[in-house]
Each structure stands twice: as structure tokens, then as C-alpha cells.
């Protein structure tokens, strides 16, 4: 079984009168590990939010052949309010169960969450307040929630930002394992070296699509695009 394909067809998007995306069209193949690259402000996160249904846009975003499991999504770190009294376990419960999170989790959900946290290398942090974690630890927790329950479509918005080198290797290995199982992965990434190392296909955008193809053909540098 493989994850769904994603089709962006003439997607345009404006924010406060500024055109953020202009006629963006490309396809992410089913089961691909696809990286989205581009300069800051180039519209990568906006495109992902359009995919999630959060941003009004023109054009179409289609997810072809999606199965019923929820989409895994790792947001950019600054998006989270750190001042909420919420442990890592609470956050996992909030994201992964129908039962109100303030009533706690059942045994099966607790076990699944603990396993996901262990897979991202933060097994002992379940009882810690989420807001008290370091940036790298929080990023790993956000990755853990994205893989529990196992998704068929995983969307990563700079998941290795703020993570140390062993953490980066762990994330890469985890993503490679999911990719090996057929999960479609769309990864916003700034590290071109990492992109060439792990990605199957790449799209470079800066409001428009500048490049779409194999990672070894990316004749591109962030400075050049800016």
C-alpha cells in the first residue's frame, strides 16, 4: 500500500494584498519523499497550509487516493503557545483521541503515545510540561504526534530546525523508514545537502515554481533565488 499523490494545480494565494503564491503547479507522486525548497517568504508554508485547508486560495489542491488515517503534520515551532499548562502526554492525548484530553487517556492510547515518543528519542518526557522543553525536544514531540497513529501522508514543516546532529539523523532515519513503508512525505527543507541526501524529488518555489525534478539536478542556491 502507498500513500496518496498530491496535485497542486495553478494555486495562487494572496496575504494582505501581497501575492504569496502565483500559479503554482506541480505533483507529488504517491509514496514519494518530496522536498519543498525555497527562500524565506517564498510561500512554502502557505502552500502547505493551503493543502491542509487552512488558507483560502484559487486553483486546486487535490489529494488523490487518500486513505482514512489522519494526516501527520509537524508545524513550524514558533506556532505553539508555550504558556499553556499541558504536559507532553496531554498534547499527545489532545491530538490523538476523541475522549476529552482533560479526562486522560486509556491504556492503549498511552502505550501508542509512549511508543511514538520513544521512536523520536523523547521517551522520558511524557510527564514534562510541553512549554518547558527545549526547541529540539519540542520538535521531536511534534514529530512523535505526527506519526501516532501512523499516517499515510506526512507533512513536515522544517522538522529538524533546532535539533542537534544526532536528532537530525534520528529524524532522517524515521522518515526513511516511513517512506520505505509507502507513506507520502512532503518536507519543507532549507538544507540543500540534506535534500540531495534523502529526497526522491524536489520542488523549488519562490512565489512560483522555479524547479521541479530530481534532487541531483537542483541547480539552485537560496542566495540565487533571493
Amino acid at each position, binding site marked *: 500500500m502507498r500513500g496518496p499523490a498530491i496535485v497542486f494545480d495553478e494555486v495562487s494565494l494572496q496575504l*494582505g494584498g501581497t501575492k504569496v503564491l502565483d500559479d503554482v503547479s506541480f505533483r507529488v507522486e504517491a509514496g514519494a519523499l518530496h522536498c519543498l525548497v525555497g527562500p524565506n517568504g517564498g510561500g512554502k508554508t502557505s502552500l*502547505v*497550509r493551503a493543502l*491542509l*485547508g*487552512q488558507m483560502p486560495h484559487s486553483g486546486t489542491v487535490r489529494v488523490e487516493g487518500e486513505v482514512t488515517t*489522519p*494526516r*501527520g*503534520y509537524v*508545524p513550524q515551532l514558533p*506556532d*505553539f*503557545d*508555550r*504558556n*499553556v*499548562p*499541558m*504536559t507532553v*502526554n*496531554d498534547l499527545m*492525548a*489532545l*491530538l490523538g*483521541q*476523541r475522549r*476529552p*484530553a*482533560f*479526562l*486522560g487517556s486509556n491504556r492503549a492510547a498511552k502505550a501508542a503515545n509512549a511508543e511514538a515518543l520513544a521512536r523520536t528519542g523523547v521517551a522520558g518526557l511524557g*510527564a514534562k*510540561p510541553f*512549554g*518547558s522543553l527545549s526547541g529540539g525536544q519540542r520538535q521531536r514531540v511534534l514529530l512523535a*504526534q505526527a506519526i501516532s497513529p501512523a499516517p499515510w501522508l506526512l*507533512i513536515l514543516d522544517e522538522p529538524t530546525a533546532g535539533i542537534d546532529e544526532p536528532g537530525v539523523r534520528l529524524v532522517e532515519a524515521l522518515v526513511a523508514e516511513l517512506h520505505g513503508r509507502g507513506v507520502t512525505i512532503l518536507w519543507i527543507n532549507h538544507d540543500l545537502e540534506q535534500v540531495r541526501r534523502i529526497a526522491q524529488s524536489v520542488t523549488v518555489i519562490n512565489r512560483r515554481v522555479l524547479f521541479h525534478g530530481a534532487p541531483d539536478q537542483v541547480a539552485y542556491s537560496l542566495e540565487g533565488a533571493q
Partner: protein
Amino acid sequence: MSALYDFIRNHLQALAASGLLPQPFEYEFVINALLCAVLIGPLLGVLGSMVMIKRMAFFSQSVGNAAMTGVAIGVLIGESYTSPYFSMFGFCLLFALTLKYTQHRTTLANDTLIGVFLSISLAVGASLLLFVSAKINTHVMESVLFGSILAVDHTDMNVLLGVTALCALLGLPLYNGMLLASLNPSLAHARGVRVRSVEYLFVVLVTLVTVACLKIIGAVLVEALLLIPAAAARNISRSLPGLVARAILIATFSCVVGILAPMQFHIPVPTGGAIVIVAALVFVATTVMRATASRFRGASV
């Protein structure tokens, strides 16, 4: 429901007559108010903790104040001036939903927009009160503003019970989605939460609870009881279950003590004021606990 209320009241009054319960339990209005309190406490505890997390304190305050305009409209169109629920629910829901709708379509900061809506609502309410002042005495408005246990009847209890049931039915299954939508809308979208819909639902729930609690706590102070127990609980909580459980306990404790203490010690204060003062004392205590006890310093962040 009246039979159930009578059954509970008769038993409590019998216990009070035999000296097992304090003397205020001999009065019907005290028992009515206490029955309301055991519904209001959990309701405000759960909802209040979410209001605090979603940073909607000013919003709930504005809904409470809009209820005064609702009362004025109710009296004007001929509703019972002691229970103008149709106008209060109608106007407050209209106020809250219009405010939310406008929030989604403007770049103004939330507090600015709420301030504008609150001012408009108060201006309309004050103007209408001038017309209806001849029809009602000042005690009616006093009970709307600051709450009065003397005014609580079976209709009020039924309304509160209905709102509690509705909140449990709609709010509990969508609790995670409502909280997630404010913590991180993108994550909520990814998990299939209809962010816009649950935001509107939350606004409706806050409005219903605010109006349903008016008779006990009053329009001016209902927001305080929504917020203070949650804020007090947050001082000493590290987790979401801890926060909500403590907020429920503190809200219920404040309601019960706020109703009974003035009766027991013959202190002539409005119920709403007494309840909020008790909650405020608990808040002060938890603030001191957080500042002095090392185990609470790490509570929340």
C-alpha cells in the same frame, strides 16, 4: 423536573431541621441556589480553563455585559422582567456571533474589536434602560448586575440544567478540537478539525453558560467566575487534567461558600459578589503557594 427539585429540597430541609445541616438549608431559595451551584461549578471550571487558554477573558466579559441590553430588550417587548431568557439568549448570541464573524474579517486586534462591540452594546443597553426604567424597579437590575439567590426559581434551574446538558452533549466530544484549534490551527486542520466551526461553537457555549449563570452570579461578575477559578488552578497545575479538575473544584467551592457564608453569618452582600470574593481569596492563596512552595514554581510555564 419540579418533582426532583422538591424531593432534594425536602430531604435537605429535613436534615437541616434535625440539625445535621446548617440552618440556611431550611430555606427553599438557598437549596435552589445550591443546586444551581453544583451545576455551575463544573460547567465554569471546564469552560473557564478553556477561556483562559484561548485568551478569551475579555470576550466573555463583553457577553456578560451584553446581557444587560438583552434584559432591557426583553422588558421592552413584554417578556417577564424576572426571566427575560428569550431576549437575553437571543441578543447575547447575536452579539457574540456577530463579534466572531467580524473577527474573521478584520485585521483589528481582538481586544480592540471586543472593546468596540462592548461599547456599542452598553450604549444601546443604557439607552433602552431609560425607556424601561418605569416598568421595573432598581432591585431587578441589581439582581441582573450582581446576582441574587432570592430570584432563582425552577425556570432558572431548568434553563441551567438544559444548558449544562447541551454543553456536555456538544462540548465534550469536540473539546479536543476546540482547544487544538486555538493552540495551533494548522495542526487542528491536519487532524480533521473544522476550525472555524468549533470556534463558533465555543463562542455559542460561552454565551449560553454566561446567560444561564446570570441569576446567581450577575452580568458584571459572571466573567470573573469563568476566569478566576481557572487562573487560580493554573497557578498550581502542570497538566491539563490537573488544571481542569482544580478549576472545577475551586469554582464549585466558591459558589457553595459564596452562597452559604453570607446566610450563615448574616452578611448583606449580593451572591455574585460573595462568590467572586471567595474565588479571589482562593486565587490569592494559590498565588502565594506558587511563589513560596518550590513544587509549584514549575507549574505551567
